């Protein structure tokens, strides 16, 4: 079975985000960029499925500027087989991403698409579900366990009350949560091998999809700052402050 894994290049999760003074966005100049952590978990899961012989080929796809190729190379070094790069300098919203991915799915015919549940830049948590709806496929979001059979995937999901397990008829969509796996570091030989793997370049127009945004950024601002409070010296002082100053006891 072929598995498709979309990956996104985002600001590295350890970088301290700074809002631009002109309020048009956040400062991405000379900032370290990495694969979105949830996408990394998705690639790792696909590679594990292939190692268990449940998947036969892993195709990774990224939508973004030229530099998104680095993200694809990282996925290839982790064990994906080939890449598709839909090149665009535009900011592509989740709906347009889902439409582009639908085009990729129609061309590649995977049995399973594994995506990160959200990207840590816009925190939208939409693309996988939108793709599932556009394809009319079943979905299991926020996965913490995936078992793949030829005709079905059994997926355990992290939900508000605990865990829920669903059985999906294939083809289907899975989105990853944090506990699904711990992504591997690519070894040096695998990084070298990844350089020779194929990445096909495409454009949004190849799929007949408009990436014109539906949402207009009015402004991006700093969140209200919380003032650091006081250090208390003892538990007695803490309880006294909570009761008599803060009034929460």
């Amino acid at each position, binding site marked *: 079975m072929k598995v498709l894994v979309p990956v996104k290049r985002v600001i590295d999760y350890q970088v301290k985000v700074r809002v631009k003074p002109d309020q048009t966005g956040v400062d991405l100049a000379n900032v370290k960029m990495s694969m979105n952590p949830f996408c990394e978990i998705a690639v790792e899961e696909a590679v594990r499925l292939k190692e268990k012989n449940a998947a036969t080929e892993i195709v990774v796809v990224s939508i973004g500027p030229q530099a998104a190729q680095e993200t694809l190379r990282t996925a290839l070094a982790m064990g994906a087989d080939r890449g598709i790069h839909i090149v665009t300098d535009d900011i592509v919203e989740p*709906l347009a991403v889902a439409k582009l991915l639908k085009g990729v799915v129609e061309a590649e015919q995977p049995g399973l698409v594994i995506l990160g549940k959200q990207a840590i830049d816009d925190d939208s948590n*939409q693309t996988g579900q939108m*793709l599932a709806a556009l394809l009319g496929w079943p979905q299991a979001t926020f996965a913490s366990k995936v078992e793949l059979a030829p005709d079905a995937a059994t997926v355990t999901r992290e939900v508000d009350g*605990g865990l*829920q397990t669903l059985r999906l008829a294939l083809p289907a969509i899975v989105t990853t949560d944090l506990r699904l796996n711990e992504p591997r570091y690519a070894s040096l030989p695998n990084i070298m091998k990844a350089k020779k793997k194929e990445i096909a370049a495409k454009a949004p127009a190849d799929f007949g999809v408009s990436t014109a945004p539906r949402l207009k950024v009015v402004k991006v601002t700093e969140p209200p700052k919380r003032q*650091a409070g006081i250090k208390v010296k003892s*538990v007695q002082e*803490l309880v006294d402050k*909570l009761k008599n100053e803060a009034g929460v006891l």
Partner: protein
Amino acid sequence: MPVLVVASHDNAILKEATAKVVTAAAAMGGEVDILVAGENAAAAASSAATIASVRKVLLADGAALARQGAEALEATIVPLMGGYDAVLFAADTTGKNAAPRVAAKLDVMQLSGVTEVLSPNTFVRPIYAGNAMLTVESTDIKKVVTVQATAFRPAGAGGSAPIESVAAPAEGFGSTFVGEELSKSDRPELTAAKRIVSGGRALGSDEQFRRLIEPLADRLGAAVGASRAAVDAGYAPNDYQVGQTGKVVAPELYIAVGISGAIQHLAGMKDSKVIVAINKDDDAPIFQVADYSLVGDLFTLVPELETELAKIGY
């Protein structure tokens, strides 16, 4: 045109988030209807009908909606949208799961995790784990929104809206329920709790997490939360996680025990009214947002805190 709110409920009980989402919906102007989609969910629909200023409650009741799966919710909601300008969900796991399917079917861009409604088209939402706030205007004709319920006050009670039945879809979406493991607890629900005691990796084991965090929480009538590190280490179940990708909470009192305060954790709790941090590391980032910081060994301070609380009647 009116706004549709999709109720958060477990068929029997309507969650408080619903009344908060109604407040967000009312801020868009226009009338507010509530959809209760479930199986044998008449009780939840009756509760929804008592929320003040709601025009009517739509009840979609059927086996396919027993667990409010995304595919079944999509099939229920999309046909109703001819009569609405917008549909709002709480940004809980049910809403996050289903809303984008509805948006894709309506060909509109969803607004996720909205914390403020400025106009029928304009919303504020956190991005980059809450390190930036985005004010964004939708150009789509219809809006699909998930609402960070903790950012809104609940709408009042005292309403008596009529309840109308609407069609529930038939089963057969390619997704079958296999089972669930739900955390059983008499404690308040994390996202609705007035007090929360959260534990981090410094607890060192699941045994110590239970021995120190849970009794303190129970003494205060608090919910129990955890950092991602504590959940990843297996000290606490996944549904305890507070943060960017876990639950967003805003209690009156948040006590962070042995939590260093990664930005991803702060994103989930920095809107709490009063934050207490107990940590042995003087430089822990959690102290930069805490109202009351206590530096020291949690293994002695937490039992001491319990003793002091007992003295004042907790």
